[in-house]
């Protein structure tokens, strides 16, 4: 067993409602948090941009964020990587595997076609941290809500984590009602909704922490009890809340409609 393997802990998944380098070019809080979950001094991180079809802009943003923080590589399932190493060798030597957003239906179908889904489950079991946002977060759960076919619809995930997950709860508010209806009807099990910037950390299959790169954001736990939905709001720990370097409005641009939604939500909580 290598030192790297000895330093691995229990299985961990960081599921982000949105955020990280593809959505927050000026805010590295969530990405730094993902790296902080591993104990090796020079972590290896592998980016899987499958859900978006390996777009160059995403890959470039990944290296811009991680090249100086870790030993960073990406795995393309569309362009030949020119390596004769097996997928298993590439995947199982990592410390963090980071999955980008996009089409969840394509993501799962393409992983399965390459038999990468099984390798990722094995990586998780071995204590390689799985992190991702949007489709790259919902994929680990029993299910979620996707636009892979155009309109919003329920989709099944890999089921490593019990419960369902829905993303961009503030950035794309039209998702939430579709998810709530699916939980109410039993089409999806109860689970979590996360705003952009919010990450849920699971150790094993237990949710242990909720963190955020943006003030004013939240996660929501929802369960169907009889015909009722029981909602429980979870306040995240704000990452990088360093009083010497408070986040400036310029580094955290919030569109007007999202700010309005957050204000509404806070007003509802107060009432």
């Amino acid at each position, binding site marked *: 067993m290598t030192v790297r393997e000895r330093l691995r802990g229990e299985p961990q998944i960081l599921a982000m409602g949105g955020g990280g380098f593809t959505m927050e070019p000026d805010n590295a809080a969530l990405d730094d948090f993902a790296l902080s979950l591993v104990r090796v001094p020079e972590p290896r991180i592998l980016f899987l941009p499958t859900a978006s079809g390996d777009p160059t802009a995403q890959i470039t943003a990944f290296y811009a964020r991680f090249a100086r923080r870790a030993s960073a590589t990406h795995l393309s399932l569309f362009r030949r990587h020119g390596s004769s190493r097996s997928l298993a060798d590439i995947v199982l030597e990592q410390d963090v595997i980071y999955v980008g957003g996009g089409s969840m239906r*394509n993501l799962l179908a393409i992983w399965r076609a390459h038999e990468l889904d099984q390798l990722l489950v094995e990586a998780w079991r071995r204590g390689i941290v799985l992190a991702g946002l949007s489709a790259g977060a919902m994929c680990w759960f029993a299910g979620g809500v996707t636009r892979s076919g155009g309109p919003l619809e329920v989709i099944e995930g890999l089921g490593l984590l019990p419960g369902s997950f829905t993303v961009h709860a503030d950035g794309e508010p039209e998702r939430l009602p579709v998810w709530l209806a699916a939980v109410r009807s039993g089409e999806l099990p109860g689970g979590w909704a996360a705003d952009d910037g919010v990450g849920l950390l699971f150790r094993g299959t237990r949710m242990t922490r909720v963190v955020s790169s943006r003030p004013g954001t939240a996660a929501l736990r929802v369960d169907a009890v009889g015909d009722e939905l029981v909602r429980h709001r979870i306040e995240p720990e704000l990452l990088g809340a360093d009083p010497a370097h408070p986040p400036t409005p310029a580094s955290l641009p919030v569109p007007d409609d999202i700010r309005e939604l957050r204000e509404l939500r806070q007003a509802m909580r107060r009432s």
Partner: protein
Amino acid sequence: MTTGRPPQIVAFGGGGFSMEAGNPLLDDYVLSLAERERPKVCFVPTASGDADHYVVRFYRTFSTRCETSHVSLFRRDRGDGAVEGDLEAHLLRQDVVYVGGGSVVSLLGAWRAHGLDRVLRSAWRRGVILCGLSAGSLCWFQEAVTAFHGAPTVVRGLGLLPHSNCVHYDGEPERREEYRRFVGDGVTPGYAADDGAALHFVGRDLRRVVSSRPRARAFRVEPRAGDVIEEPLPVSYLGDARLDLAVA
């Protein structure tokens, strides 16, 4: 609705607008099969992950003389200029569906997840001409040789053509050896094509081989008498003026 054309597939070993800038011979050949003044051509770049630059090159090549469109399976939510709504109805209206290169494994996974395998099969039956290079060639066959993850392996394609296929036959010597070994080990006999050579099937049978390069070759590969033979096929070079006369 019927096109009046038989099922046809033109499978390029490599070539066309994405590999042979300035050499339109293979693409022109496919368009000529449509027998329309302004054929409807739809590009399906799934195997490349719907790469933007690839889509742009498609429009640059075809938009002046065809009714062009493209299908994106990665951006069904945003449109981005791709076909929206009912993909099946759109694809069945086309004269030509042009499938780009990339990873045939990723292409097949995504197509099956969206039901595009079924749609393209019915398009083919109705006479929509299917063509493509590399992954866009391999996908139509029963079995195909891909070297995407390094060593060549055999994958199951859509099976419209009951043969096997190997592309870029001149490009990678390892593929050639492996293909023959696979066929010896029981893979469906089939066809290999160099870059610049295209296999034109009518129904399930090979009608002719055309090329955009004078020396591009194609082969029938099949077991015979305990060995695997590689039989060169006659190739019509499309840049040869005499051929044009012969066809006319």
